[in-house]
């Protein structure tokens, strides 16, 4: 987790420096702020509202409208299952069920130990290799329920090892 005690305005100084103070800068600023801080906290959104001189409610309105923004902390690993049409007809539903079973969480949730967040996306544009599982920006094509479980096991083992050496 990358949260610290520094006020959000200071943490975002470099993000603000790269942009103007127009309303049209709002979405790029939210994107960069999230890249930097992992998610959009209330404090972050308030700081952005002050910077752009727009009501905090508008910032919240935009942040909740788009699928890309997260208002809660996320897990260390981001598990994404594509549910595009090609993935769907080639069995992405089975993979989603398998992932939910393996991680014990539902779509949009994060495991309690903050290791995994699981979400689905509308389409990743890799339809030729459907169905698709993505973990931390690594694409795994032609997925099966079984292989998905094996891949997740590898991550779990990796984490267990990392904890052992701490």
């Amino acid at each position, binding site marked *: 987790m990358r949260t610290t005690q520094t006020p959000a305005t200071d943490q975002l100084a470099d993000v603000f420096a790269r942009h103007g103070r*127009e*309303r*049209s*800068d*709002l*979405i*790029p600023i*939210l*994107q960069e702020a999230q890249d930097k801080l992992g998610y959009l906290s209330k404090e972050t959104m308030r700081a952005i509202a002050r910077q752009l001189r727009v009501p905090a409610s508008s910032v919240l*309105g*935009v942040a909740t*409208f*788009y*699928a*890309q*923004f997260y208002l809660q902390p996320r897990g260390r690993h981001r598990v994404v299952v594509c*549910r*595009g*049409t*090609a993935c*769907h*007809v*080639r*069995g992405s539903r*089975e993979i989603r*069920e*398998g992932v939910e079973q393996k991680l014990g969480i539902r779509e949009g949730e994060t495991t309690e130990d903050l290791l995994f967040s699981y979400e689905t*996306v*509308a*389409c*990743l*544009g*890799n*339809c*030729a*290799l*459907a169905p*698709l599982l993505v973990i931390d*920006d690594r*694409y*795994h*094509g032609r997925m*099966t*329920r*079984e292989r998905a479980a094996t891949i997740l096991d590898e991550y779990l083992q990796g984490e267990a090892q990392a904890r052992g050496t701490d």
Partner: protein
Amino acid sequence: MEPIRSAEELFALKERLRGDPQRHLPCISLCDTGCRALGSAAVRDTFIAEIRKRGLSDKVRLQTTGCHGFCERGPVLVVRPQGIFYQRVAPEDVPEIIEKTVLNGETIERLCYRDPVSRKLCHKEEDVPFYRRQSKTVFRHNGMIDPQEIDDYLTLDGYEALAKALQSMTPDEVIEEVSRSGLRGRGGAGFPTGRKWRLCREAEGSPKYTVCNADEGDPGAFMDRGVCEGDPHAILEGMLIGAYAIGASEGYIYVRAEYPIAVKYLSRAIEQAEAYGLLGDSILGTDFSFHLKIKQGAGAFVCGEETALIASIEGHRGMPRPRPPFPAQSGLFGKPTNINNVETWANVPVIISRGADWFASIGTEKSTGTKIFALAGKVQNTGLVEVPMGATLREVVFEIGGGVPRRRTFKAAQMGGPSGGCVPEQYLDMPIDFDSVSAVGAIMGSGGMVVMDNTTCMVEVARYFTDFVQSESCGKCVPCRIGTRRLLETLTRITEGLGEDSDLALLREIGEAVQTASLCGLGKTAPNPTLSTLRHFWHEYEAHVRDKKCPAGVCKALTTFVIDAEKCTGCGLCLKGCPTEAITGELKVPHVIDQEKCIKCGSCRDVCNLGAVLVT
């Protein structure tokens, strides 16, 4: 990079680049975008290491390119000048490719594609049936150039169409040429591009904007991604020509954040074009100026709709607004704005350089040029396919796509994403163009083509698309917000075995209301998957509602899988693949499914080569 100040300097630079001995070295062109999910990055790194290890840096050229189209067989590469085509390349193959093919011109047959029908080995791209029947216009550079190197684009006459337009054509003549070419918008609706430009040119207001819609939110479509990641300068050049014709001085590319490679390559293309002075002030020494910026989308399907896209660039929730005023009159920041899709823009340079007559000679009378389709789903050769308009569905799915795998049968092609519909088997020989596709209840859309076989349930597919549009509805207008929810509830009920006869009429009634009364394109087309499956697959709905059966074996509540003891040889494949150990049986003895444990995932049916798993 020195700025290019005139058309003459552009031609001179091209000649200089073409003369560079580096460009005449044996060259390996490796797909580095679509093939990444299959490990092409490791292949690339191995090539770089191997070339360095052997001290071949000044004897061999490695070119990383965009998508070659044949994603099914990735990672793919071509060795030039011979044009030898290799597929499913692994890092272990790299030393041999360099030794035998690059240095000695020999073909490694193991890596060649074998035509499954004729059993012939295909040494070159043009021998492969997948490529042989295609006709590449928009994709002419994909696989030939490094999308991150503007010089590659310039050697293939890049930006010369822009030079021609600026030097020898008035803005009106450019619009006239585009109009005569018959180019229609490739984003889906097929509105004549020239007419759209003219409306914006004639509108009052300054500055004017041109926008490239690279949002591509349709599930099952990835051709715009293919162009952005394979030939970004073609998009820039098209936008520059359009901006000159319309009188626009500023532009935006609105691209999905879900496409990080496309964002990176487009940003780099803009930087390089600026460095050469091809973007900015006084382009090629004329008084035409154009500035281009990238805006990343933030994940909302509705932002593909013009007015919603504009709201999103302005920093608002991406909600559409009623038209008129049309964006051409009052668009971005209240100024005249022209929005075209990626593929539309990429067609423009070739229309200007080769002429409207040439372009109009391709395709059909009312749908000219080519169209790229994203072929996916239950088809042998998935990938990107560019064919002249008017090609038939049979040509695309069976001749290029190789048909449906695993001895199953073709049921339908879903075209146009959630705004489209399912085209059933009886229309396989229909020419695909804007008008004929919409006549059967689908749309060309951006070109997604998802093939469905007899193990796809059409009711469930309708439920799937409705789920998608329901969750993507922006919520502004009631018919879309509530109508899609009611549609989804009804469809879900049917797939769960709780449907009643009256539900079918209800679906049609709600569907037509949503279609009529919604504000924007998302809502107006949201019922299409439901209405088109009702139209073409009525019997499947009936089976769900009256017989409580799912003929395709997809809807879990209505499906029981059993193993046909006569056909089963006890090979054990299904037993191994079963996630819940519901299948038991000795080797060489017919297996049995324990219905208590079975979760109806269908993995046994998927792996069975004998067709012994039956749906009852």
